[in-house]
């Protein structure tokens, strides 16, 4: 187990480095930040001076090495747009995105898995067909449209829930803010979580259904039934447990997706998280912030993958026994 974790950790480091280099090269193409950093009165010579002072006219490799050196020293630089240390900006915004992602994933899993089981067990039922049809909407409609429609219904027409922001937040400990402890914070969380979780929910539901249908056809389930075990024991202890490995992979990877691509939902709901920060930074070509964010996301993805691999060991005894290293890499 120890070597397994070590090997995965060194792979993780390599992935993060590669992602950092790739993102750094790509950032050359977001445009020239200097014209956003000076007003319209600045002359071309002054703009050039600014470019030189920031080292933007150095070669990409040199800039990348400088960036890595600063990261190793724990310095992510200062945001071009806000003039504030990037690390502080990211830390300020991280709680909002994490809370939103976790809530969205909870919604997706807690609704998606039971619905998947239900539709698998009653696959000829009318309700199952209705649920499957509805789930297509979740897959087909673009996220921003769902968000806008929800805002229109619940904020503008009914006036029940706020259309933007995070509500009132409470500070916990050093630097963490939460909206989970206030009424307005909880209300503000409902629409964005639903919007963000809807696609994952339908995905999980369909996946659980397909896996369940497959498992239910296997011999050991038939034997279990033949032995006269209670229906619930067969369905949940034997069948569901065996469908969970791919589901965990998906939940893990999708959590990474939700976290990284909450950009759209955060923009629609003006949710003050990392996604919103990033979309604003792209428009202003805020290179230090974007580079740090991309490295952070790469690191997060790698960490989630590692966690998923470790979870297999918990769920699948064969992995624990070292028979197979991991399963179902998607």
């Amino acid at each position, binding site marked *: 187990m120890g070597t397994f974790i070590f090997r995965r950790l060194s792979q993780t480091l390599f992935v993060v480095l590669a992602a950092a280099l790739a993102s750094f090269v790509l950032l050359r193409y*977001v*445009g*020239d*930040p200097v*014209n*956003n*950093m*000076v*007003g*319209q*009165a*600045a*002359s*071309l*010579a002054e*703009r050039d001076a*600014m470019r030189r*002072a*920031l080292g933007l006219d150095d070669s990409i490799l040199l800039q990348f090495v400088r960036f890595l050196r600063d990261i190793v020293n724990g310095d992510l*630089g*200062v*945001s*071009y*747009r*806000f*003039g*504030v*240390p990037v690390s502080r*900006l990211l830390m*300020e915004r991280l709680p909002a995105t994490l809370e939103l992602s976790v809530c969205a994933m909870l919604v997706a899993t807690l609704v998606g898995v039971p619905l998947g089981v239900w539709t698998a067990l009653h696959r000829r039922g009318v309700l199952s067909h209705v649920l499957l049809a509805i789930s297509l909407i979740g897959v087909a409609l673009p996220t921003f449209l769902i968000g*806008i429609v929800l*805002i*229109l219904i619940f*904020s*503008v027409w009914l*006036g029940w829930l*706020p*259309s*933007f*922001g*995070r509500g009132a937040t409470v500070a916990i400990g050093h630097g963490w803010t939460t909206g989970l402890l206030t009424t307005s914070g909880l209300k503000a969380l409902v629409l964005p979580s639903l919007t963000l979780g809807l696609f994952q929910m339908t995905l999980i539901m369909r996946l659980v259904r397909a896996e369940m249908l497959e498992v239910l056809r296997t011999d050991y389930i038939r034997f279990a039934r033949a032995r006269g075990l209670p229906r619930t024991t067969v369905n949940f202890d034997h069948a569901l447990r065996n469908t969970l490995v791919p589901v965990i992979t998906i939940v893990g990877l999708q959590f990474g997706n939700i976290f990284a691509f909450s950009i759209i939902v955060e*923009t*629609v*709901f*003006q949710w*003050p998280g990392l996604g*919103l*920060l990033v*979309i*604003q930074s792209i*428009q*202003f*070509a805020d290179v230090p912030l974007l580079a740090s964010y991309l490295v952070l996301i790469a690191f997060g993805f790698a960490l989630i993958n590692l966690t998923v691999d470790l979870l297999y060991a918990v769920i699948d005894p064969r992995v624990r026994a070292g028979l197979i290293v991991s399963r179902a890499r998607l």
Partner: protein
Amino acid sequence: MKRFWLLCLSTFLAAGLCQADAKTFRYAYRIDPASLDPHALAETFTLSWLGQVYEPLVGRGKNLELVPALAVKWEQPDPKTWRLHLRPNVTFHNGERFGADDVIFSIARIKAEGSDMAYTVATVTDVRKVDDMTVDLVMDKPNPILPLQTTSTYIMSKAWSEANGAAKPASVKNKVENFATNNANGTGAFKIKSRQVGVKTVLVPHEAWWGPREHNLTEVVFTPIQSDATRVAALLSGELEMIYPIPQQDAARVNATGKHAVLTGFELRTIFVNMDQARDELLESSVKGKNPFKDKRVRQAIYQAIDMDAIKSRIMGGTSHVAGTMVAPGVNGYDEKLDRRLAFDPEASKKLLAEAGYPSGFEFGMDCPNDRYVNDEKICQAIVGMLARVGLKVNLLAQTRTKYFEKILSRNTTFSILGWQPLSYDAHSTLQDVINTPRDKIGTYNVGSFSNKRIDELTDLVENEVDPAKRQALISEALTIHKSEIGHIPLHQAGLAWGVRKGVSVHLRNDDSLELRWVKVED
């Protein structure tokens, strides 16, 4: 004991009354101010937003006229000196007294390395303290428009800035955060209560403010909301009192609720077309060996092929002001007589092109931003279509502002649209920065390098002419030459639209600046 209960009761009642009187004004704009440091970035929105917290010496009234702010009187004892009589009994938000030393300090700070506002006081060579409440600004040459140029030149406290290590302006070049970036200590009618960058800023009235209290606010909450649809929804759902800007397609819907109103005006920013008139061969064109834009007939052909009335009605929802000159109404130096376009006439265009030697037209590239000006990309697409009708094939490259400005400011462009709002609200800026022959610090935004000696001379005269009537004549002469030469093609000023909840009154000023001191929340 009885007194104790009475005290409790009165406190309770007072708290209740205060509650009833609390007037919170919640509003949203597209973006957050870039910094609270008033000298860090000369961006229109940041400066107008900071005008609630910081104040200039000479400010602007409801119709953009000059009004006393931190200076009660300004005069010229001689043409090269502006004497400012400072307002007595002004306090900063932290209680410090305002005086001449703060003015001298602020001007030095504005001229320091890293400041983006230096251009406003570029002509000032010396600042002299006459007494504690009088300051002389001295120049090498007469500068009649210094008061106009400095209406966004905000005064900071010397003691506060120095005590907090903010004596120099915030600059990313320094790679550290400046205290003034997220803290403010101005003299304005409102002070910062709390701020989370890019998320929310809360302001409260500065009780000791010198001016008459025209507003009735007790608290102001500002939120940047980037998505147009969300901003409108937040207004319609009653979560906000006011939003700006309102996208044109939503204006009618907001008006129709009966609970909201849309206020409209015109921007001070003129949108116009640049044509490369410097190169001997265009960068992106089918014509080789010569530059067709050097021929005035070609420029006029393009001008007359663009139907601005159609763009106004089809793209701008009827809200724009069609422009015949480079200077917008409301800007000092505007000349109404020049504000008429050449007739839209595709037949005349074709004839002019044929005379110039391009009977079957030619091909060239066009640059356009897609997130900078109102409907910028749609306007460009319309122009492409209109020019196609006279035989000009235009290859449009519409991209995000960072890419777009990178391309056009490096002069790597053939044909483009651009907008210009003089930060001084004075035509001299348009002449100097957009129309003058590019050289050194002049003509930075004249990306087509239009050049006319007489206009350059006139611009220098405008800079130093003290008599307003003579000055206007010089401006008009320069703009007339530019118009007849077709140095650029003026297009329009876009409409402004603010959305306000009924029962809230705000004053829409044509520089798109919301002044909290004129806001009233009735219920």
